[in-house]
C-alpha cells in the first residue's frame, strides 16, 4: 500500500471529528448563555471533544488542524479552570474556529491551506490573557544527565542494565493518574495491561505499576520498548510531553556508571555474528516532525455496549436486500395462490411471511434516526446571522425525537438550513421595526417535526414580516416566471408559493448571509427528489410557515397500479385519497368543465381532472363497440358524447344507448401537499408494495415520474410523481377553479338544506321531521286521549286517530309521565288517503332549516332516517309516516 495512512483510518478521524465539532456548538452556546453558572460538566465535555480532535489530527500529522485545535483546547482549559470567563467575543472566536476546523476536515489533505490566522491570533491573545496554561509541550528528550528524575532509579540493577544494553529506546514516562486514568475513563488495569504489552516498565524503588497508580499521585517510570519516539506516547495513550526519550548520550552516561559492562543479547546465535560489532547500532529516529498522540489508538474502541458503529453502505445493502426479500415473498405468494391443497406449505409460507415482515421492519428501524440530529445545528446558524444583522431571534425546536430514515435526514439538511437562513435573514425584522409594529423585539423561529399521514412534516414557523403576494406577483411577472394573465388568476397562496418556482430566486435574495446561490427552487427540487413536497403559508405582518413533507423511508411504499392503454404505472398509496368510478351514463352529470379544464363533481367540491394519457403523450383510444378495434378517442371533452365527426354512430341503436362500456371512467383522486386532483386512467389494478428505485440522471427532467420499480411479476414500471403530473397539467394557475369549486360547494349546501321541525319526547333527546312530511301539528291535552286496550286514540276531525308514542316504536326515552299535554304530529298520508295516525311528542323545540345530509343513526327502528348534529346537539331524523304506518299495520 502506498498511502501513508489507511483511507479508512482517515475517514474515521474525519467522521469522529465532525461529530465532536457538532457537539461542541450547542454546548458552547449553552455555556455562553449560562456564563458562570454553566455546569462544569458542559465545559469539560467541550474540552474533551476538542482534545480528541487535536489528538487525531496530531497523530495523522495534520498540522494546521492540530495547531488550531490545540489553541482552542488551551483557551478552553482556562475557562474550565475558572481563569478566563466566557463571553460573547470569546464564543465568537471559538465558534469561528470550529468552522475553520470543519473547513479543514472537508479536505484534510489540503487542510494546511485553510486560512485561520485571525482566529489563531485571537485565541493566542486569550491564552496569554489568562494564567499560564498547563499544557505546554515539554522538550522531547531530557537533557543528558541533568534530569533529577533519573536519579530516582536504580540504574545498577540487573534489569536496568540489560535494559540499557539493548538497542531499543528508553523513555522516562510521567503519569498523572487523575488526568490520565480517571479523567480519560480508563481503568488502572487497562493501563497496566497496555503498558506491559508494549514493553517493560521500571519504577523507582522497585515499586509495582499497580501500586503507584493506586496511590493516585503523579509518578515517573522508566520504560523500555521497541517503539520509537512518538509511537511510544501514542501507544501508552499519554500526551507526548510526558514521554521523554532518553538520548543516546544520557543512556551512555547511565550505563557507564553501572558496575558491569552491558551484555549483548546474543544467546541464540549459533554462529559468530561478527557484523554486530561492526554495525553501529543506533536508535533510528523516525522523522521528528510528526508528533504522535493518543486518540487513534482509542479509535479501536467499541462504543458503549448498547450501540455499534456500522458502515452506512452495509446498512443500505441490507435494506435493499430486505426490500428484495419482501418482493420475492410477494412473488412466491402469488405463485402459490393456486396451491391451496398443501397445508404444510401454507404453514411454511405463513412463517416466512412473518419473518420477512420482521426483518423488513427491523432493518428499516436501523436506518431511522431522530431529526434532532439535523436540528441541532440550527440555533448556531440563527445566532450567527442574528448577531451579524443586529437582530434578536429565539429558536425553538420541537419534535426532535421524530425519527426518519437516515438518508432522508442527510438530504433535508441542506434545504432546511437554507430555509432557516432565509428566515433569519429576510423574514425576521430588526428589533426596532418589530417594536414599531407592536411585536416583541425578539423574533421567534420555531422548527417543528411531526408525523402526519405516513409522512414526516417539518415546519419552519416564524413570526416575521410575512410574504407579500403582490410583491411576488410583480416580481414573478418581471422575471417572466408567470404572465400577467396568469398573475391575475392566481390566488394569494399560489402566488406566495411561487418562491419555489425555478428562475424566481434572484441576486437580491442571495446575500452573503442567506446562501451561496442556492435558490428555493433547488430546495424544492431536492425535497421532491425524495418523494417529498414543500410549500409555504404566509400572512403579511404576522409570519410565514414553510412545510416540508418527506416520506418516512425511501424504501418500500405501498402503491396502486393503474393502466393507460398498455402501459402500467404505480401511484404511491400515500397520495391516493379515493377512487371514483364514473359510469358512462353518469359522465354527463358528474363531469363538467370550468375554464377549459375538466372537473369532476365530487360531493361538495369540483375536482380538476387530469387525463394521464394526455400528460404522457399516449394517444387515447377506446374500443369500437362492435369490432373491438382500438380507435382514437377524438373527443375534446370527456363530457361530450362520442360521435360527432365519425360517420359511424357508435351509440347503439337499441334501447341500451347509455351503456357504452368503454365510456366508464376511472378516476384516482390524488393529493400531494396542496395539490389535489383526479387522475383519469383506463384501468385499475391491485395495490402492491413496491421498492422505489431512483431514475437515471438521463431522466431527471421527466417531471411526471419520481422513480421506477419492479412489479411482482418482474416487469419494470414507472412511478408517478403526483406533483410533477400536476405541474405538467398546469394545474396551479387556476384560482378560478378554486372559486368555482367554492361556489359549487356552497350551492350544494343550500340545495340540501331542508325545513324541519325539532321536537323532543323524553327530556334530552331531540328529533326532527321534515316539515314537508307533516300534515298537521297541534297541541294535545292528554286527558282527551282515549285508551282501548293497549292502543290510544284521539278525536281528530271527527275521526278516531291512532296515537303513537315514540317510545313504543323506537328505543328512545319515554314521554314524561307528569306532563298533561303534548303535541301531535300528523304525517302527510299518501295521496288521496286519510291520515293513518299521529305521533305524540312532549315539546316542540323549533322549526329550522337544516342540512339534509345525515349519518346513519345509532338507533335502529322504523322511520329512522339518520342522525345529524345541530347546534351541538345530536338530532335523530325521522320519517313520521313510516313510524305511524308501521304502528298501524302492527
Amino acid at each position, binding site marked *: *500500500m*502506498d498511502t*501513508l*495512512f*489507511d483511507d479508512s*483510518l482517515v475517514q474515521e478521524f474525519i467522521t469522529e471529528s465532525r461529530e465532536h465539532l457538532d457537539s461542541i456548538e450547542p454546548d458552547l452556546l449553552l455555556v455562553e448563555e449560562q456564563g458562570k453558572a454553566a455546569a462544569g460538566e458542559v465545559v469539560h465535555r467541550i474540552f474533551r471533544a476538542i482534545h480528541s480532535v487535536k489528538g487525531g489530527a496530531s*497523530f495523522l500529522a495534520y498540522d494546521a488542524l492540530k495547531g488550531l485545535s490545540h489553541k482552542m483546547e488551551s483557551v478552553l482549559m482556562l475557562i474550565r479552570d475558572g481563569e478566563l470567563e466566557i463571553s460573547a467575543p470569546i464564543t465568537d472566536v471559538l465558534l469561528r474556529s470550529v468552522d475553520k476546523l470543519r473547513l479543514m476536515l472537508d479536505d484534510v489533505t489540503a487542510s494546511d491551506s485553510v486560512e485561520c490566522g485571525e482566529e489563531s491570533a485571537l485565541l493566542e491573545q486569550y491564552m496569554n490573557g489568562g494564567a499560564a496554561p498547563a499544557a505546554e509541550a515539554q522538550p522531547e528528550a531530557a537533557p543528558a544527565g541533568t534530569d533529577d528524575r533519573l536519579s530516582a532509579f536504580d540504574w545498577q540493577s540487573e534489569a536496568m542494565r540489560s535494559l540499557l544494553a*539493548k*538497542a*531499543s529506546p528508553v523513555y522516562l514516562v510521567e503519569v498523572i493518574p487523575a488526568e490520565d486514568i480517571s479523567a480519560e475513563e480508563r481503568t488502572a488495569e487497562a493501563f497496566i495491561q*497496555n503498558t506491559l*504489552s*508494549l*514493553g517493560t516498565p521500571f519504577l523507582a524503588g522497585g515499586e509495582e505499576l499497580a501500586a503507584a497508580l493506586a496511590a493516585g499521585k503523579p509518578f515517573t517510570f522508566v520504560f523500555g*520498548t*521497541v*517503539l520509537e519516539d*512518538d*509511537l511510544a506516547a*501514542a*501507544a501508552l495513550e499519554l500526551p507526548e510531553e510526558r514521554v521523554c526519550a532518553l538520548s543516546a548520550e544520557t543512556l551512555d552516561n547511565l550505563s557507564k556508571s553501572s558496575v558491569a559492562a552491558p551484555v*549483548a*543479547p*546474543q*544467546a*541464540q*546465535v*549459533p*554462529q*559468530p*555474528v561478527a*557484523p*554486530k560489532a561492526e*554495525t*553501529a*547500532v543506533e536508535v*533510528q529516529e*523516525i*522523522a521528528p516532525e*510528526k508528533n*504522535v498522540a493518543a486518540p*487513534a*489508538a482509542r479509535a*479501536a474502541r467499541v462504543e458503549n455496549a448498547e450501540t455499534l458503529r456500522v458502515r452506512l453502505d452495509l446498512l443500505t445493502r441490507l435494506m435493499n436486500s430486505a426490500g428484495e426479500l419482501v418482493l420475492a415473498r410477494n412473488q412466491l405468494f402469488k405463485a402459490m395462490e393456486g396451491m391451496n391443497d398443501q397445508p404444510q406449505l401454507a404453514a411454511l409460507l405463513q412463517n416466512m411471511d412473518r419473518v420477512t415482515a420482521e426483518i423488513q421492519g427491523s432493518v428499516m428501524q436501523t436506518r431511522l434516526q431522530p431529526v434532532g440530529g439535523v436540528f441541532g445545528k440550527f440555533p448556531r446558524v440563527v445566532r450567527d446571522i442574528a448577531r451579524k444583522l443586529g437582530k434578536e431571534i429565539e429558536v425553538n425546536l420541537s419534535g426532535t425525537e421524530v425519527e426518519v430514515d437516515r438518508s432522508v435526514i442527510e438530504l433535508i439538511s441542506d434545504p432546511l438550513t437554507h430555509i432557516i437562513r432565509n428566515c433569519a435573514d429576510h423574514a425576521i425584522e430588526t428589533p426596532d421595526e418589530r417594536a414599531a409594529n407592536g411585536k416583541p423585539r425578539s423574533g421567534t423561529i420555531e422548527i417543528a417535526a411531526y408525523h402526519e399521514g405516513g409522512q414526516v412534516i417539518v415546519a419552519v414557523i416564524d413570526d416575521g414580516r410575512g410574504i407579500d403576494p403582490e410583491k411576488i406577483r410583480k416580481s414573478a411577472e418581471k422575471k417572466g416566471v408567470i404572465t400577467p394573465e396568469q398573475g391575475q388568476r392566481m390566488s394569494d397562496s399560489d402566488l406566495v408559493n411561487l418562491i419555489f418556482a425555478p428562475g424566481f430566486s434572484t441576486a437580491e435574495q442571495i446575500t452573503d448571509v442567506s446562501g451561496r446561490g442556492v435558490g428555493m427552487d433547488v430546495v424544492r427540487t431536492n425535497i421532491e427528489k425524495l418523494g417529498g413536497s414543500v410549500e409555504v403559508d404566509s400572512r403579511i405582518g404576522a409570519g410565514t410557515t414553510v412545510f416540508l413533507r418527506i416520506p418516512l423511508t425511501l424504501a418500500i411504499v405501498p402503491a396502486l397500479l393503474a393502466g393507460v392503454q398498455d402501459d402500467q404505472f404505480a401511484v404511491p398509496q400515500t397520495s391516493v385519497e379515493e377512487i371514483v368510478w364514473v359510469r358512462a351514463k353518469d359522465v354527463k352529470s358528474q363531469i363538467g368543465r370550468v375554464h377549459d379544464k375538466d372537473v369532476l363533481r365530487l360531493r361538495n367540491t369540483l375536482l380538476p381532472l387530469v387525463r394521464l394519457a394526455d400528460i404522457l403523450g399516449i394517444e387515447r383510444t377506446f374500443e369500437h363497440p362492435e369490432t373491438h378495434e382500438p380507435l382514437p378517442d377524438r373527443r375534446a371533452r370527456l363530457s361530450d358524447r362520442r360521435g360527432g365527426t365519425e360517420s359511424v354512430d357508435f351509440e347503439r341503436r337499441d334501447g341500451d344507448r347509455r351503456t357504452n362500456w368503454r365510456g366508464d371512467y376511472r378516476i384516482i383522486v390524488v393529493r400531494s401537499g396542496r395539490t389535489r386532483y383526479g387522475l383519469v386512467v383506463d384501468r385499475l389494478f391491485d395495490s402492491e408494495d413496491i421498492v422505489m428505485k431512483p431514475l437515471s440522471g438521463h431522466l431527471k427532467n421527466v417531471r411526471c415520474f419520481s422513480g421506477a420499480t419492479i412489479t411482482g411479476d418482474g416487469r419494470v414500471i414507472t412511478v408517478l410523481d403526483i406533483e410533477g403530473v400536476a405541474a405538467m397539467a398546469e394545474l396551479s394557475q387556476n384560482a378560478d377553479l378554486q372559486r368555482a369549486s367554492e361556489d359549487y360547494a356552497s350551492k350544494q349546501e343550500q340545495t340540501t338544506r331542508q325545513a324541519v321541525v325539532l321536537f323532543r319526547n323524553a327530556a334530552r333527546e331531540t328529533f326532527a321531521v321534515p316539515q314537508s312530511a307533516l300534515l298537521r301539528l297541534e297541541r294535545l291535552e292528554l286527558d282527551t286521549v282515549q285508551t282501548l286496550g293497549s292502543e290510544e286514540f284521539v278525536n281528530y276531525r271527527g275521526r278516531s286517530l291512532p296515537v303513537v308514542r315514540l317510545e313504543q316504536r323506537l328505543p328512545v326515552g319515554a314521554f314524561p309521565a307528569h306532563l298533561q299535554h303534548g303535541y301531535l304530529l300528523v304525517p302527510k298520508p299518501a295521496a288521496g288517503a286519510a291520515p293513518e295516525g299521529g305521533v305524540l311528542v312532549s315539546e316542540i323545540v323549533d322549526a329550522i332549516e337544516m342540512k339534509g345530509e345525515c349519518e346513519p343513526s345509532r338507533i335502529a327502528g322504523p322511520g329512522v332516517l339518520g342522525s345529524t348534529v345541530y347546534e351541538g346537539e345530536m338530532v335523530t331524523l325521522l320519517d313520521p309516516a313510516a313510524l305511524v304506518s308501521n304502528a298501524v299495520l302492527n
Partner: protein
Amino acid sequence: MKKIISVDDSRQIRMIVRGAVDVLGYEFIEAVDGLDGLRTIRANKDDLALVVLDVNMPGMLGTELLAALKGDPELKSIPVMMVTTESEGKLIIESVRKGAANYVVKPFDQSELIAKMVESMGEAA
C-alpha cells in the same frame, strides 16, 4: 534453529532480507503472502529463528498473520519482526501489542535491518 523466513509480497524486500540473513549466517526461506507464510512457518516451525513479516500484504494482513502466529501455542515462541512502510504508527503499535518483537521502517538499510533482527532474536532469550 537455523532458518529465518521473510514473508513479503515484495520481491525487493525479500531480497534485502535474504542479504541480511546471509550475513548473519542463517538459512533463508521465503513466502509471498500471509497464507503461504503460515503454511511455510508451520512446516518449518522447529527450525525457525525469526520471522520477518511485512505489515501490508494483500489478502491476509501482516498483523493478522502475527495474531495467528501468537495465537498458536506451537508457533508463538518464534520471534516476529515487522516491516512497515514509513510510519504506519497505528499498525506498529498494534503489532507490538500483539507480540511483535520489533519492527523496521522502510526505507532501511541492511545494517539497521540486521541490528533489529538480532535484537528480535535476542528478545526470545
